[in-house]
C-alpha cells in the first residue's frame, strides 16, 4: 500500500485554481521527485497535503496517509499526524527556526507533543537527534540559538526535527536550494541516509534534475498547477515524453560541468506565466514547439506502462503534426 496517496488534489484561491487534479503515490522506502519551475504549483501541493496552506487558499481532493485522508480528518487529528507520521522540511533554513528559542527545545518539541516526553527526556533525545544529523558537538549546539548556526547546520536541525518521530512520509521542499554546492552535497547525502534508515517515503520537491537523477526513484513533472508527466526516473530522464519535461531536461543537461562549452543552449521560449495567466487547454501550449490546434483542449493524463503523460503530441511517440509553430515567441 502507498504510504502517501494523493488523489485529485486541487488548491483554489478566490476563483483561481492554482493546483488542479494532482494525483500521485509515494510508497514506503520510495523517493519521488516533484519537479517543475517556480509557479508550477509544486510547493502549494506539499503545503496542501500537510494542511498548512496560507490564508485564503483552500484544498480539495484526497491525500491519504496510510488509511486516513489528511484532507478529510479533523484539524485535531491532522495535528496528531503532522510531525509524527508526516513531516516537511522547508526550503529556507534561515527563517524556519524560531529565533528566540534554543535549538534543543525546538528539536525536542515534536517528541514532547506526540510522545509525551518530559522536558528532560526531550532534551536528551534532541541531543541524540542532533548527533544523528551529524552536527558536531550536539550538546553544545542544543544550547545555541538559530542565529549562531550556519545555513547548512540549520538545515540539519530542520532534518532532525523532521525525523524526530520516525515519520512514514517526509516531504522536502527544495531543501538544498538555499545552500552552497559543497554544503548541498553533504546535506543531500544525509537526507539520503536518513530516509534509507527510517524506511520513510520521500517526496522531494526540486527544480534540479541532477539532484533528482542522483536521489530519486520516480519523477512527477508539474506545470501550471497540473501533473503533466510521471514515471520512473530512468525512463523520465532518458526518454521524456512531455515536451516540458523534455525541454527542462535539455536545458539542465546542456549546462553541465561535464558539458562542452560554446554551443547555444536549448531554452524554453517565454517564461512561466503568473497564476491565473496560463492559457486554457494545455497550460504549456504557449511555450511549446509542438503545440497545435488540438492543444486548446486539455489532454487527458494517459498511462502507458509505468508512464503517464498528458500531451497530444508526446515526444518520441509520433512525429509532430504539420502546421505547428516551431518556435514559441517571446512576449
Amino acid at each position, binding site marked *: 500500500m502507498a504510504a502517501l496517496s494523493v488523489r485529485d488534489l486541487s488548491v483554489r484561491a478566490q476563483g483561481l485554481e492554482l493546483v488542479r487534479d494532482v494525483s500521485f503515490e509515494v510508497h514506503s522506502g520510495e523517493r519521488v521527485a516533484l519537479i517543475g519551475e517556480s509557479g508550477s504549483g509544486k510547493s502549494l501541493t506539499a503545503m496542501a497535503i500537510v494542511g498548512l496552506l496560507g490564508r485564503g487558499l483552500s484544498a480539495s481532493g484526497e491525500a491519504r496517509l496510510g488509511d486516513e485522508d489528511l484532507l478529510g480528518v479533523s484539524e485535531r487529528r491532522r495535528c496528531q499526524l503532522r510531525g509524527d507520521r508526516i513531516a516537511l522540511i522547508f526550503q529556507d533554513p534561515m527563517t524556519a527556526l524560531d529565533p528566540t528559542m534554543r535549538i534543543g527545545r525546538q528539536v525536542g518539541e515534536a517528541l514532547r507533543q506526540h510522545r509525551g516526553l518530559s522536558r528532560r527526556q526531550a532534551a536528551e533525545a534532541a541531543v541524540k537527534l542532533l548527533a544523528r544529523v551529524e552536527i558536531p558537538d550536539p550538546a553544545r549546539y542544543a544550547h545555541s540559538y538559530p542565529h549562531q548556526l550556519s545555513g547548512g547546520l540549520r538545515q540539519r536541525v530542520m532534518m532532525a526535527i523532521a525525523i524526530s518521530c520516525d515519520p512514514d512520509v517526509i516531504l522536502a521542499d527544495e531543501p538544498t536550494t538555499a545552500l552552497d*554546492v559543497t554544503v548541498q552535497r553533504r546535506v543531500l547525502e544525509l537526507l539520503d541516509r536518513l530516509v534509507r534508515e527510517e524506511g520513510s517515503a520521500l517526496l522531494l520537491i526540486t527544480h534540479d534534475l541532477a539532484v533528482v537523477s542522483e536521489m530519486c526513484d520516480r519523477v512527477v513533472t508539474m506545470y501550471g498547477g497540473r501533473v503533466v508527466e510521471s514515471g520512473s526516473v530512468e525512463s523520465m530522464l532518458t*526518454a521524456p515524453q512531455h515536451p516540458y519535461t*523534455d525541454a527542462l531536461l535539455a536545458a539542465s*543537461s546542456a549546462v553541465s*560541468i561535464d558539458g562542452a*562549452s560554446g554551443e547555444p543552449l536549448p531554452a*524554453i521560449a517565454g*517564461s512561466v506565466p503568473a497564476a491565473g495567466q496560463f492559457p486554457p487547454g494545455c497550460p504549456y501550449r504557449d511555450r511549446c514547439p509542438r503545440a497545435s490546434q488540438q492543444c486548446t483542449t486539455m489532454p487527458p493524463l494517459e498511462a502507458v506502462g509505468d508512464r503517464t503523460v498528458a500531451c497530444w503530441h508526446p515526444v518520441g511517440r509520433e512525429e509532430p503534426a504539420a502546421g505547428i509553430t516551431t518556435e514559441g515567441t517571446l512576449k
Partner: protein
Amino acid sequence: MSGPPAVLEVRSVAKTYDPKRRAGHEPSWALRGVNLSVNEGDTLAIVGESGSGKSTLARIVTALERPTEGSVLYRGETVSGRRERDLRDFRRRVQIVFQDPMSSLDPRMKVHDILAEPLRSLGLVDNEREQVRTLLASVELPDSAAARYPHEFSGGQRQRIAIARALGPSPELLVADEPVSALDVSVRAQILNLLSGLVADLGFTLLFVSHDMAVVRHLCRSVMVLYQGEVVEQGPTDAVFKDPRAEYTRSLLDAAPRIRHRRERGDASS
C-alpha cells in the same frame, strides 16, 4: 609582461570591512592577495561559494568599492583610489549587471528612463528614443517595453533590461555578478544564450561572477576560483575542469550534482 596589454589588472588586492584594523589586530579579510589579469576579448569566470569574496571583487574592479590594499588598473592606468570625478571615462568603459533582477531595476522608473539614465549621466545622449529602441532590440525585447514599469516583467525579462542598461554606454568590459542564479532553469538558458551572443557580436570583455561551475564551464574561457577571499586556482576553463590542481576546486566539482541517466536519443527536440 609581453603580449597585448591587459584590459584589467588587479594587483595584490585585499579588502576588509573590519573597522578595528590596527597594529597587532589581524582583521578578517574578505579578500586577500588577489592578482588577476584579463585580456581583451577574454571571458573570465570568478567562481566561489558564499563568503568567498567574489562579489566584493566584482565591486572593487568596477570601482564601486575601494580595496583596502593593492590596486586595480584599467588599460594600464590605476583606477582604485581615484576620485569619482576622475572616473568618468572608466565608468563609460566598464559596466556591471547584478544578480537579482527584482532589486536591480528602480521600481519607480519606466524602462525607457532606466535605459536612458546611463546615457544621460555619461553625456552619450544622441537620439534618446532611438538609442533606447536599439538597446531593447539588442536584448530581444519589443519597443513597447519602454513605456512599462519593471514589475510588469518576468524575472528573465527584467534581467534582459538590466543587461540592456549595462550595454548602453557600449562598455569594453562587462562585469556580470551572478546574473542567472536567481532565474529558473529554462529562463537561465535564454539569458546565457543572450550573453554569449552579445559577447560574440559586440566583442566586449566579460568578467562573469558565479557560484555555478556548470554555467561557468559553458560560458567562460578561463576561470579563477576563490575560497575565503583567496585565489586557489586560475587557468583556462578546460584545463581547470579536466585537471583541477587545488583541493577546493576538486571538491567543488565533485559536489556538483550530475544527471546520471543518459538520454537514449541524441538531442532535445527544441
